[in-house]
């Protein structure tokens, strides 16, 4: 349930002592994010990061004359009051860094709605379920689905994964799918064919390409405590992802938050 709070200020007490006007003002600030009940329910059902914050302060202002509303407005503004509560620090976009390529930013539907919508409107096919986040790399739009109960986006997947991504060509609408599992989801028979696999430690997850002969393994940057990754879906701590094609490494990317 969202507690409905209206931003603004109001005089809660007023008194005149001699020529001094003592005005106590109650000031309410709210998070500028506004949610419909439907959207709010969806955010909760999907465990999508969001907040609805507000704060209330009372402060005393003194005047040497009977203040007008404009006088009080000026005083409360000068005291630092804003009806829009500074939003909680929100994580910046996830950035994929690949040597020799342009960095790619991933925009969340709730945290970066403007950029997200810009990309979403570029999708040339009808989308039944809006993705959690999106990015654009070259001519390909990437749609990422992070679902609380891991329910697959049925338009593209039937099998259950930890995370889902769909790559759609922005002109042709060609679709390529990838499902992610936590940990190493490959047999030793497969990993033994992967170039340099023996040097990889602290594996976080595996990306399975459903329409291509590719595989990606995600792993921590090192065994140092500072590089410990709690969840590779969140990307609070940078980590690597190496992709193989026919057993050969074709790229290694670093995933981190945009600074």
């Amino acid at each position: 349930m969202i507690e409905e709070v209206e931003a603004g200020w109001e005089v809660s007490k007023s008194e005149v002592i001699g020529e001094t006007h003592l005005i106590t003002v109650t000031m309410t600030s709210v998070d500028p994010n506004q949610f419909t009940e439907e959207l709010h329910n969806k955010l909760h059902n999907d465990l999508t990061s969001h907040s609805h914050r507000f704060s209330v302060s009372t402060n005393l202002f003194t005047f040497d004359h009977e203040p007008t509303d404009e006088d009080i407005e000026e005083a409360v503004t000068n005291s630092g009051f804003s009806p829009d509560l500074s939003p909680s620090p929100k994580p910046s976009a996830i950035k994929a860094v690949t040597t020799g390529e342009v960095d790619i930013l991933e925009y969340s539907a709730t945290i970066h709605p403007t950029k997200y919508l810009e990309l979403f409107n570029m999708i040339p096919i009808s989308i039944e379920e809006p993705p959690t986040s999106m990015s654009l790399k070259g001519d390909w739009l990437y749609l990422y689905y992070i679902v609380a109960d891991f329910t697959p986006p049925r338009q593209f997947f039937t099998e259950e994964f930890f995370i889902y991504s769909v790559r759609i060509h922005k002109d042709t609408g060609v679709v390529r799918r990838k499902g992610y599992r936590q940990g190493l989801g490959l047999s030793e028979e497969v990993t033994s064919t992967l170039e340099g696999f023996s040097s990889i430690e602290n594996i976080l997850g595996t990306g399975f390409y459903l329409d291509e002969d590719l595989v990606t393994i995600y792993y921590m940057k090192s065994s140092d405590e500072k590089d410990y990754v709690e969840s590779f879906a969140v990307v609070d701590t940078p980590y690597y992802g190496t992709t193989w094609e026919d057993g050969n490494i074709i790229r290694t990317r670093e995933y981190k938050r945009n600074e």
Partner: protein
Amino acid sequence: MAYGLTVNNDSGQVIIDSDISHFHFAGKYNSASDVAGGTLQNHTGNTDNDGGNFPYANLNSLGSTVGHIYKYNITQADISTKPPMCFIKPTSTGSSAPFAGIIRMHFESGYWKVELLQSTHTNPGPVLYVFTTLDQLTLGSDSYGLRVMDSSSAVTFDSQNRPLRIKGSGDITSPSLAHTGSLGSSWLATLDVNCTPSSMTHSASSIAIDKQIYYVPSVAHCALQYTHSASDSGIHDWNSYAWARNDIYWAFYRSSFRILSTSTLQCSYAIYYRGHLARTAADSGFVLSLSALFGNIDADVGSAGMVPYTNSSRNVGESQGVIITNSDWYA
């Protein structure tokens, strides 16, 4: 009148009147004990929520500096009907000196208990020069001097008992508000006294500054109050969270005084009691209501009786009578 004595000065002011019980010196008193002014501060409630950005700042801050209270036990024959008159000999003078004022007198356990509030702590505290009527004192045994009685033969003036000699007097008005400007920001209040002291010029400048002692009542001023509250809930890192926090800061002021120069007494305020209550709740359920926390805070402060009137101003513009005399006369 058909009998008695009246002595006037050359301005026609009464100096001695046999029908008036004059005040006489009853002794010097150092404080018997001292204690910091009152503080009501606590935080209750949990703060650990799962991933939310709970505001931990200043949960135990106080937002102001409380004054120091010195307690004196005054010996007097009648402890029920005739309170003594207490002059303050301050610990220091000048623009850096603390402000002091007598805030309470009551009789208890055979003493007149006097409490003096000083804006900062000093050791020792101020000294009280106490005056009372002659019926509370032992009369002198000298065979010379002037002794005056009223119609019932009660002694009302005796030169041997060092009557109170008023050297300077006047009226002083306390500043209109102890703290001017914003009372705080976010989770921290700023309620310390910051007003410009008011001043009174008097005619006792012939008394050396370190010999002056003054009598002036301290009056209650107001409780300035600052509140801040916030709540948040949502989803962070796949976890639901919710928290609410509600803080109330307040300070209760009494007027107090200092000797600025040989001819000037100043009036400002000292904090008698202060408080900061923080109430928090945090968990992963969306069940918190900020309004519920408001209720808890109000009940706590109200039940302690600590906020008689808030964000207001009392006893300003009212002249407070000042009397100044010379401590050397009562050494």
